[in-house]
């Protein structure tokens, strides 16, 4: 174990997997000579050379398809998007090509490609650069969707994503790259896709949250404990598709109350689906409506305060939990 950043954890995962399997290669804008726009691929070009660490022109649609084609003939591409907002230009390659190739070919072609990069907002990047379209990808059969919130999860899950034979949408957090955590160093440290983790045990209410807002949720749990005597259990599904809802259901059957938090927009978001799953399978266990705290239902503003206000802040989560516990 060593305390390293989320960025270093991803870098380790990439290096370890690329050393293990010569069919794995990384491509994207600035991943090579520039060492990565966010330095996630630092030193990889030097170690693996340009065919395995390839700088791409700004052509998201083109190099996404390049990954799909390479995967069809047996390579295991890792496609980095400088940010997921730019992947909008490559959506056809992800959704129509990668996600459906196995099905359309009657199982002839596996699609071991990992699409990764920072998702969600950073600091004041405004409307075109801040989107967290997690629910879009979760909507698509054929894709797996992973969104780690800690350095440990980032490493263990990225290694599993790279080894997975299905296309994986791997959503990192621009504001998470610098966050630190205890991360196992051994090469065989893997975390399975599709398994939720209880990040903080509790008894009175279940908070389901993924990606960056996990940290706001954990501090909300602290506040709830210390200031309101409410014991919140915080669960991070980590994989949004396929999602391990059993861990969530078990918790809700115990707490009978639930608040779902996400950075993305509310309408048809990840939380909406979790609400659906919970009410379908734990209807009689619910003592209150499930509340959701989401990103504000508006494009992202540049102005600092408006942007901050648009995120799911600790105070909103506290409010939502107290409301759900009928304390407001």
């Amino acid at each position, binding site marked *: 174990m060593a305390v390293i950043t989320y960025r270093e954890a991803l870098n380790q995962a990439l290096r370890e997997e690329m050393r293990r399997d010569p069919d794995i*290669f990384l491509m994207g804008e600035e991943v090579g000579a520039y060492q990565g726009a966010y330095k996630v691929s630092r030193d990889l070009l030097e170690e693996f050379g340009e*065919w395995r660490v*390839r700088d*791409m*022109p700004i*052509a998201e*649609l*083109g*190099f*996404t*398809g*390049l*990954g*799909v*084609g*390479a*995967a*069809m*003939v*047996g*390579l295991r*591409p890792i496609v980095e998007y400088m940010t997921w907002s730019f992947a909008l230009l490559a959506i*056809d*390659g992800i959704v*129509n*090509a990668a996600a459906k190739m*196995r*099905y*359309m*070919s*009657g*199982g*002839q*072609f*596996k699609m071991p490609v990992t699409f990764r990069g920072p998702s969600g907002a950073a600091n004041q990047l405004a409307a075109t650069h801040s989107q967290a379209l997690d629910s879009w990808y979760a909507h698509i*059969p*054929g894709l*797996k969707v992973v969104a780690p919130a800690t350095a440990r999860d980032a490493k263990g899950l990225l290694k599993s994503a790279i080894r*997975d*034979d*299905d296309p994986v949408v791997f959503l990192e957090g621009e504001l998470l790259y610098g966050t630190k955590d205890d991360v196992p160093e051994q090469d065989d440290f893997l975390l399975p896709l599709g398994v939720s983790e209880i990040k903080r045990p509790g008894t009175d209410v279940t908070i389901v949250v993924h990606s960056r807002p996990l940290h706001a949720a954990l501090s909300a749990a602290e506040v709830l404990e210390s200031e309101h005597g409410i014991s919140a259990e915080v669960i991070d599904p980590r994989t949004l598709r*396929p*999602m391990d809802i059993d861990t969530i259901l078990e918790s809700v059957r115990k707490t009978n109350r639930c608040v779902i938090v996400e950075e993305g927009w509310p309408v048809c978001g990840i939380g909406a689906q979790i609400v659906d*799953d919970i009410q*379908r399978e734990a209807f009689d266990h619910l003592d209150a409506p499930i509340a959701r705290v989401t990103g504000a239902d508006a494009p992202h503003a540049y102005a600092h305060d408006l942007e901050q206000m648009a995120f799911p802040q600790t105070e909103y989560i506290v409010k939502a939990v107290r409301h759900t516990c009928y304390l407001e």
Partner: protein
Amino acid sequence: MATRMTGSEELLNLDRGTLTEMLRWMILGRRYEEKTAEMYQVGEIGGFCHLYIGQEAVAVGAITPLRDDDYVITAYRDHIHALVRGMDHKTVMAELFGRVDGSSRGKGGSMHLFDRNVNFMGGHAIVGGHLPVAIGIGYAIRYRDSDAVCVCFLGDSVANIGAFNESLNMAALFQLPVIFIIENNRYGMGTAVHRAAAIENLADRACAYDGMQGWTIDGMDVLEVRRTVEAAVERARTHKLPTLIEANTYRFVGHSMSDPNYGHYRTKQEVHEFKLKDDPIKRYIETLRKHDLISDANIEKIEGEVKVIVDESVDFASKSPIPQPAELYTDVYSGEYPDAKRRDPWR
């Protein structure tokens, strides 16, 4: 500027077997599609079904000279490319029928034929969508230091879409052994080429990419196609240079089985004249005759063999069972797929 290649007849010094084989493929392609149309009419085939009638010289001239380890990829007008590349005529027809013995177990249909065993990489239905896939295959070829090539067929309208620029630029930039063959059949659905592309010869768009050669050729002359593709293959295999070939051809039928052959966008007369004066099969037969390389007997023999193959494929397809309901949720992921059933107790 695009060079117009000529003197295709020099290719007639190919051994007679090869020359006959090419004719056989062209006739098979024609008859297979005629039967496909018939099966569509009687309702055995559904969805969008795009026939290749009139364009046979392109696929046959381009694919027959390839090696087994080369790759072929095309759009949705893919039946004949698939057959010439070596896909089984029975499993292709079964796929068109949507049966479980189809190449994609009935899940892909006419627009999505695939066969990994003969490096036939599809069958892609989004215009321009397969060009990036083609360069990915080319990238993998270089990655493995192989000297295979990837031949990518595309329609004329693809020259106007974004993926065209991104893919050709990367093919030239990374020096990928990819041969792009535009099948310019004069129309994208109901749009004449020059109502969509601001350029005289589409192959001239190669000028935008250093190292990319552009050639515009007579796509109705199977020998000219073959000769040109062989030159392009040499560029790709030996020099890792991509090529953009524009093969001028013509679609004798409607865009798809659900579209009219002529009407608002082209006249009955125009179609008639092309069939009369520019049928690639007739033209090839004439050339072969002129040089005493084929006899009526040979042709009858071919027609006979082809008929057997076509009937056999229909027979096979109609006997193949329709996919079981369980197939709905298979091939979505590599492993088990529990979620689906859980949220879906009604099916």
